[in-house]
Every structure is written in C-alpha cells, then in structure tokens.
C-alpha cells in the first residue's frame, strides 16, 4: 500500500536555513518482516498452545514462523506431521534413528518408526511473542 510507505516520507526542503545533514540518510528504515522472513513464498505462521517446548523459549500463545524451504537438520525445531497430527518438537538424530524431543522434562522423546506415517512440514525459524 502506498499509504504505509508515505508515513516515512520527510520533506527536508522547507526552510531557507541549512539543510539537515541527515537528509540523505533518512530513507533507510527497519523492516521486521525482512529480518525474520528470508523465503516469503515458503513461509507461513502458526499459533501454538501447550507447554512442551517452554525450555526452547516457545510458550503458549506464541506465533511461530515456519520456513518450508530449509532442509531440516539435527537440532532444528520442526513442524511435523505424525500420524495425521501436527507436532512441534526438536529433531534429534541418534544412530540414524529420528527422535522428536520436547523441550520440557515432563514429556518423553518420541521415536519415529515405520508404523506411523511421518513427514516434516517445515523448520521453525522464529518465535514471536508480543508483551503488550
């Protein structure tokens, strides 16, 4: 929307005095989206509830940013589908076997077996929590 961009527009050419020395630099601004999202077409967000990932810094109510284009590796937090249900867990590979690890001692690791269909939908690249 052109309107959003126009908010940051400053016209420095009004006064007859010295022009602002910052005039040439004023157009640069921080964009949160650019910081978090590197592959926009592969990225989507989910809202989580539950306490299984608290020690990884993911609490109930957080919004997670998921990137489908990143290759999941050992140690990544992933969004996956196990037996037709979504899960968010840490991916752990021990002796070529895959485990889904919760970041909360209350929950046991889940070994991935051939009995239950398993697929990784994407890698969690960020968690967003607003305080106010």
């Amino acid at each position, binding site marked *: *929307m*052109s*309107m959003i961009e126009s908010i940051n527009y400053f016209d420095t050419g009004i006064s007859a005095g010295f022009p602002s020395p910052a005039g040439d630099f004023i157009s640069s601004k921080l964009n949160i989206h650019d910081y978090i999202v590197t*592959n926009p*077409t*592969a990225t*989507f*967000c*989910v*809202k*989580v*509830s*539950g306490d*299984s*990932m608290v020690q990884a810094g*993911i609490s109930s109510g957080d*919004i997670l940013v998921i990137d*489908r*284009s990143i290759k999941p590796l050992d140690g990544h937090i992933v*969004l996956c*589908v196990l037996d*037709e*249900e*979504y*899960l*968010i*867990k840490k991916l752990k590979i021990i002796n070529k076997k895959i485990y889904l690890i919760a970041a909360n001692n209350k929950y046991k690791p889940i070994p991935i077996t051939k009995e239950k269909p398993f697929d990784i*939908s994407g890698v969690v690249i960020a968690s967003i929590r607003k305080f106010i």
Partner: protein
Amino acid sequence: MIFLVDCNNFYVSCERLFRPDLQNLPIVVLSNNDGCIISRSSEAKKIGINMGEPIFKIRNLIKENNVHVFSSNFSLYGEISNRIMLELKKFSSELEIYSIDEAFMQINYTDNFLTISKEIIDHINKIIGIPVSVGVASTKTLSKIALMFAKNNFNNNFILEEKLNIPAILKSLDVEEIWGIGSKYKKYFSQNKIFTAYDFINTNKSWILNKMNINVLRTREELKGISCFPIITSNPPKKSITVSRSFRNNINNYVELEKRISDYAFTCSRKLRKENLIAYTLSIFIVTNKYRKDNKSSYYGFISDDFLVSTNSYIEIVKLSNKLLRKIYKKNFSYKKGGVILSKLSNKNSYQTSYLKLNSSNKQHALMNSIDYINTTFGPEKIKLASQNLKDISFLSKKNLSPKYINSWDDIPNIYI
C-alpha cells in the same frame, strides 16, 4: 520446449494443505453460493461424484461416504496460486499464467526435460506443499495432450517427444479432446469422418478456414509441432470489468435491489482501482428468473451511460449505477440476478481532466485512497457507501468456509504442542 504445469485438484489440495487429517479422505469444494462441485479429491472421484454436479443432488452420496465439503475460499487459493507462480518463475522467466492453477513455461536451457519436470514437481511440493503435474511438448496444444497423459502417470509427468510415436498418440485421442476444439464443430467433423486428433491433422486447410476459423487451423499446425500460440508473459490490458451474481433469494423490491447493485458497483470499482485503471462507461443489468415458465414474469433490463470524464471513484460509480437502476427498474417483477460492467478503460495516469472538476478531485482522490487503505488493512467492506447493504450479510452463501491459513492473522493454524 513448452512445459505446462497444472496443480492436481487445486482447490482440494489447498484445503488439505493445513489439514493433515484429511490427506486420504474424500473432499469436494463447492462453487460460489455453495451450488455445484468444482473440485474433487481422487477419493471423491472414485465414489462417483462428477464435476459440476449440483450439491443438492448428491446429498445422500456425501453423507454415506462421509465426504468433507468445503465452500470455495478464493482468497486462500489466490494466495497459494501467487506463491506457486513466483516459484515457477525460478525455472523460467518466460511464464504465462494461464489460470489460477495452470501455467505455460518455455524452457530451452536443457535437453533433460524429464529431470527438469521432476524437479518442478518436487520443488513445488516442498516449498508450497501442492502436488502438480507437468506435460512437456514442442507446442502449447501438444503440451495440453502431454498433460492429460501426465495426470494418469504415476510420476505426474509426461514428455511428448518426437522419438515417441506421436501419430499413435494422436490416434488414441478424440478430436473433441484437443485444446480449443471442443464440441462446437462436432457436426462438421462427424460429417467428414474426422474422429481422432490424427484424422484432424490431415484435414484440408481451406475446408477449416471455410467452415471454422483461423484458430482451428493454428491448432492443427500446433499438433504437427509448429508453434502458433506463443507464450504470453504479460497480461493484455483489460477491456472491461464485470461483477455479476445471482441473488440467494429473488428480490422484488427496489430498495433491496439498489443495495445489491451498489455492492456490485463498489466491488467493481475496487477491482478497477486495483488494476490502476479508470473507466468511461458504466452498464448495469437486472434479470428475472429465466426458468420461470410464465413469460409475463420474465424481464431483462440493460442500460449504459458515460461518465463526464473517466473515473475510478467509488462514489461516482455507485451513484451512476443507482441512477441507471432507477431507469430500468420495473415494478412487480422478482429479480434473480444483476450486474455492473465498467468499460472503455484506460490507465489512471493517462487521465484527462475536466475543468469542471479540478477543485474537488484532489479531495476525492485522498478520500478514495483512504477507503482502499482501511479496507485492505482492516478487512474488506469495513467502509461502505450508504446505499450499499449495511447489514453484515455477504451476498454469497458459504457454510463450510475454511480459514485463510496463510493470509489472515486471525486465521493462522492453531497447533497444540
């Protein structure tokens, strides 16, 4: 070579994208107003649900087989489609978006068509999560045929190469199945014993031009591998914008009808503004139910008028629509459908101003932009004009609408972890 990429059961695949529980279950998606079937999962096809079938006719079939039914969620499908097209552009800049779920691409940088087609399928499946099929051939028309084979192929791809037995393939194909031919010319074909695509390529040029048209001849050349329909990478400028819909219930009073026409005029203006266009001519029409048997109750009203100067103002467009409606409205009819058409479109920047309007036009412009800003930021139709339908009932029936998973903060998936 031309690569035709087509999403498999696109709307159904979109509905499944964030529903892992529905992966292997029968699903259908309904048209606007929840009328007919417009997309089916393979499981739904197996049950015997046909394309275009009205939902009320197959209620039992749906209940007995526990088919999941979705209203169409075009804002979700549109966003997923945009993402797919952007990813496809990584394979070729010569891309023609043919429909919401189909694109032609020219790829000349490799001879290994099979590998590239597999890469496309895998890439779209990984990045977007939508299954696609790829048909490859030397022309668009042949790529459509390749796609038919790809859809039935386990790997979802098919390369129609010269080393294959193309005549045999064309012999196996009904002439009406050829892209752009259809059943229009059935009479001429059967009179001349032309039944298959192979029969068709051996027809006489002047006979085609005499009985049919130049595009039929071009199609024949394309079947021989001579390219006649190039890839069109930019959309030709729009000639008109139409918003027309059937009303959920028949309308038989003027006030209600004016609300609908105002709604359509407003939506039509929004589309016009989105394309950065201005319109010079406005037409509206209202129709009674044509299936009613008594002719006395049937009426079709159509009227056009020009603006003083081309405009893209919500207010001017809705105002003129209502003025025109008053001219064609007839009492004691019950109306089934109405529509608004904007035509003689031109680019906003080629605006010819009138000395009569200069004073107000800047204010108007700012007001219109504010309406767009509020409606795109806070949701469509947050700001309306007073003649529109102000109650928050949408004119479409959508009982089984899924969330906008990837394009609305209120609708992102909830996951219990």
